[in-house]
């Protein structure tokens, strides 16, 4: 299982990367993309939207099913990864390179897991 140690993880299978300027990148984990299968569509918020911890920030559709993307933090959307709107399969190719949104004014954070904790969590869920 691919779980980089420099990221934090939520129990909803999203990852968070805190950047030096205080903003944060959010994506879905490699485990999540693998469970979803071939991703063919993603619905993201727009810049300026408020995202709320534990609430959907958008959804991702694979050939098989649709899943909400549960936001692990609260804040304002500063940027979205527009490439994904036309090439969502990039998430299957590298889930940690294919960030979904960059969040600024982060006001709240879920109890995020370390890589090691997340690995244990995924194992226990099986």
């Amino acid at each position, binding site marked *: 299982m691919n779980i980089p140690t420099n990221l934090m993880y939520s129990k909803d299978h999203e990852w968070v990367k805190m950047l030096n300027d205080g903003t944060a990148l959010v994506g879905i984990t490699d485990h999540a993309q693998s469970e979803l*299968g*071939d991703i*063919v*569509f993603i*619905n993201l918020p727009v810049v300026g939207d408020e995202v709320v911890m534990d609430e959907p920030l958008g*959804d991702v*559709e*694979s*050939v*098989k099913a*649709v899943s909400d993307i549960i936001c692990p933090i609260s804040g304002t959307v500063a940027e979205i990864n527009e490439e994904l*709107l036309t090439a969502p399969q990039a998430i*299957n190719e590298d889930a940690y390179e294919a960030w979904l949104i960059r969040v600024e004014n982060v006001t709240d954070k879920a109890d995020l897991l370390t890589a090691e904790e997340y690995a244990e969590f995924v194992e226990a869920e099986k």
Partner: protein
Amino acid sequence: MEKKTPIYDCHVELGGKIVPFAGYSLPVQYPNGVIKEHMAVRTAAGLFDVSHMGELLLKGPDAFKNLQYIVANDCEGMVDGQCRYTPLCNENGGIVDDLLICRINENAYLLVVNAANKDKDFEHIKKYVTGDCVAEDLSEGIAQFALQGPKAPAIIKRMADENTIPKKYYTFTVTEVAGVKCLLSRTGYTGELGYELYCAAEDAVGLWNSLLKEGEADGLIPCGLGARDTLRLEASMPLYGHEMNDEITPFEAGIEFFVKMEKADFVGKSALVGKENPENKRYGLKVTGRGIVREECEVILNGEVIGKTTSGTHCPAVGPVAMALLKGEPAEGTKVEVSVRGRTVEAEIIPMPFYKRPSTKTAK
């Protein structure tokens, strides 16, 4: 607890993602993923375990007479080794199931039915069987595989005596494939060339492995339920429980070609008289907006709900499409809106099938 098909262990070994489906544990996909599996069937070949399908046998001197009354299609003129598709209707004209009839001989007809409907079908059929005829459920002892794709004929040719391979669509033979006794039919549910193979459950693992090995060089890969669904949707083939159910008539489902109202009498006929032009009919939709339309989404025209989608997803060769039961006879090209989990996505009525395999007519 779900049942396992005879080759369940093969699926696990191949890395199949196992899900419950119609009472069975079956692979929804293998590590290649749905899109690669789908494209393998369109461009080379794919192998599906469809052993969950049910097989019922109608046999006895009165088998034909019974079959003619029980199913909606006309079985007159069928010869040994011929297959015919038919809806099975209830007294109200709704669809109990859709199935494939294989004429073994004049006194024996094999009915291949949907797994989820098998018990219901068996009870339904037994209700109508009269005279010197019995219905038997052979499902437990039979495994079924679908070998589909343009390379399928070449693969089978290397595994069976060429003279015994069915040449025409919707015909079958009883032959040996890789030394395993099979009923080999030129049928399928993908819109591609291909075969379906029925063998004894105890021979299943051997046949499955022989097919995979023999086809490997041609690009054959194992395919799961996910690709089976995207392939049939792309080919606009109706699926029971989606485009058809006990309340939907064959005329609404768009399979009226397989209902022969001029036939003497059959279960459901009297209820279907006068319903040949129903208010709701099956249509094809291409999603033109951003999003994926799935089943059970409302379809809106000029602010009015005109029906619901019955199936829909992203199909690898044609993009996001859906089928829907709609009223008001919307013409091709009509722009509609589909309500997808609170969002509105634009779509357009387009002709079916969404995908048609390239012509394979060979030059003489």
